[in-house]
């Protein structure tokens, strides 16, 4: 498998604090990978560096054969990398459908004259936008909820809507930031299914930040562990569970035992 994303020596400091310290990692095309680590380990900062919200101090990001360094977030999105947020950031007053429609922005013809005069296929584009947005809502299981205002949706639906919105720009890679935070085990189970379908049906590579070890171990093919901004381990779920440094810094004795128990049971 070719690597869709290659990150080399990524560095970011805030004041005196090093948030991400020379992190390198690769994401193979069509994989599901996870980034784990304690709070404040720099996972979200890492996502923000990839998507152009922060500018890295050093290092390189190569995505689908081009460098993403120096691109603004909207350009990164257009290049095919899309994301969700740790604290849900939908457009709260817009309907679910409109949220997804906004997500299609980088793939649309945005032209003042075209819009004001409504000429040259404007109507056709609007119809297409609407249909595709509805399809995506159905894909994540929100079919029929298109007209509901985002802020009125239940928590789990909001998480799924964010994923639909991120998929709207036809990304090659989707970054999910704690997508199952606040879900109960049943909901997490369903979410895992959705992540697999994103990869299998849409062909989108998935990278997620996650705390729920059940989700991480159950779904990801590659795991990277960050601690104090540094990558301390990477490998398959089994390798990570067996890594003493990870156990000490992050997993703890008990969680590891449980994970092993689950693994043997499964």
């Amino acid at each position, binding site marked *: 498998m070719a690597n869709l994303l290659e990150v080399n020596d990524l560095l970011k400091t805030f004041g005196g604090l090093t948030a991400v310290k020379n992190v390198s990692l690769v994401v193979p095309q069509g994989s599901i990978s996870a980034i784990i680590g304690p709070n404040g380990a720099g996972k*979200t900062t890492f996502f*923000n560096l990839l998507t152009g*919200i*922060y500018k890295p101090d050093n290092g390189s990001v190569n995505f689908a054969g081009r460098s993403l360094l120096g691109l603004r977030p909207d350009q990164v999105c257009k290049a095919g990398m899309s994301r969700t*947020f*740790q604290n849900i*950031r939908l457009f709260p007053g817009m309907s679910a459908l409109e949220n997804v429609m906004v997500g299609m922005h980088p793939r649309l013809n945005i032209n003042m004259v075209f819009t004001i005069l409504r000429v040259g296929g404007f109507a056709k584009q609007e119809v297409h936008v609407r249909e595709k947005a509805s399809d995506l809502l159905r894909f994540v299981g929100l079919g029929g909820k298109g007209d509901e205002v985002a802020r009125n949706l239940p928590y789990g639906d909001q998480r799924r809507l964010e994923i639909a919105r991120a998929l709207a720009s036809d990304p090659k890679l989707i970054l999910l930031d704690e997508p199952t935070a606040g879900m109960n085990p049943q909901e997490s189970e369903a979410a895992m299914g959705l992540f697999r379908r994103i990869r299998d049906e849409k062909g989108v590579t998935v990278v997620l930040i996650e705390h729920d070890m059940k989700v991480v171990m159950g779904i990801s093919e590659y795991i990277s562990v960050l601690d104090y901004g540094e990558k301390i381990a990477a490998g398959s779920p089994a390798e990570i569970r067996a890594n003493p440094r990870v156990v000490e810094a992050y997993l703890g004795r008990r969680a590891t035992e449980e994970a092993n128990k689950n693994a043997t049971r499964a």
Partner: protein
Amino acid sequence: MATDTTSTSLESAAQGVSVTGWEAFKNSWFYKFTLFPLGQIFGFILGVSVILTVLALLLAVVFPEPRENINLTQQIARQLPDMIIGGVSIGFVYAMIALGYTLVYGVLKFINFAHSEFFMVGSVVGFEVMQRIGAAGEGVLEAWNPILLIVALVLSGMVISGTLAVIVERVAYRPLRGAPRLVPLISAIGVSFLLIDVVRGFAAITRNDFNLTYPVSQVSFFQQRPEITLTPENAPLLQFWFTAANRDEIDIGLRMTSLIIIVAAILMLLILNWFVNGTKQGRGIRAVSQDMATAGLMGINANLMISLTFFLGGAFGGAAGVLYGLNVGTVTPFVGFIPGLTAFTAAVLGGIGNMTGALLGGLALGLIETFLNGILVYFPAFGQRYTPVFTFSVLILVLLFRPSGLLGAKVDEKV
């Protein structure tokens, strides 16, 4: 200080060493609330003055003779003391207003657009009080102890503007707390307009005129103008200055009202700094400004703290108004707009929410303004009327390169 007793034992406990010498001095009340802030003030004045003088001299190198028979270097050298003193005194006025913006922004995260009107009200109250005292008979004002008179004027301005600020917050801002940011801002614009016209109506009824002239002329103390004359004899080290100015001696004239502003402002700034950083109530204000809901959970009455903040901000605006009025002589109900905007610029320049920043920004803008006024006269194409344009450009430049101001912490939004 209630907590000071706890501090030493804990500090030593924490560090495992006994606190002595410099460290102890650094933690002393005297250093934290007197020496350090005073040093900061003088450092800012010195720093900004030096930078501006250098810039002005650079300009003089580019345009040695902007007008016939005008040697710019000479003019700068001759005017320098006046420009600095004038700049510092107006700078303190700006700083005091800017503190009001910054305090309120710190707590409620919105720009109290009406703050300039607290300044205006202060200046009008100062006029009213002085006028009324003077109206009691001829020579009454002269008979007052000038220091007492100033204290009385400033205090009345502070109390009324402070109270007004508290009322405005309760009526026009508190019901809107938590609403989208534009909502309180628009309400504040409304309050600002309303206050201007209410004061104007009041002045129109009571005086049938709204140009209110302080009866400063009735007090000889305010007319005094202490002067220091520098000559090569008493200041041999400044020879280069005499050469640059092409003069044998340099008079440093000090307007009494400027001096009053400077002294009063420094005193008040010291008190404010102590209050916010050294008392329990001040700690409460800071806690509320960082996280209002949690402050409530800690037992702090957040509304009380907010009222207190508005009172402080309003009082400082009012005091600035009185001092400004004494200095310029005539005030109107519209007097708040330009100083208000400049002071806001100062607050932003320094980093809004940051008290030291407001001080630095105010002093910097005051000095920039007087330097521009002093120098632009010699450039007929521009002239002093463009000064506001330049000061405002400063704000835009700063915001472009440092969106959170000079001393504001650079915060990347948490995503």
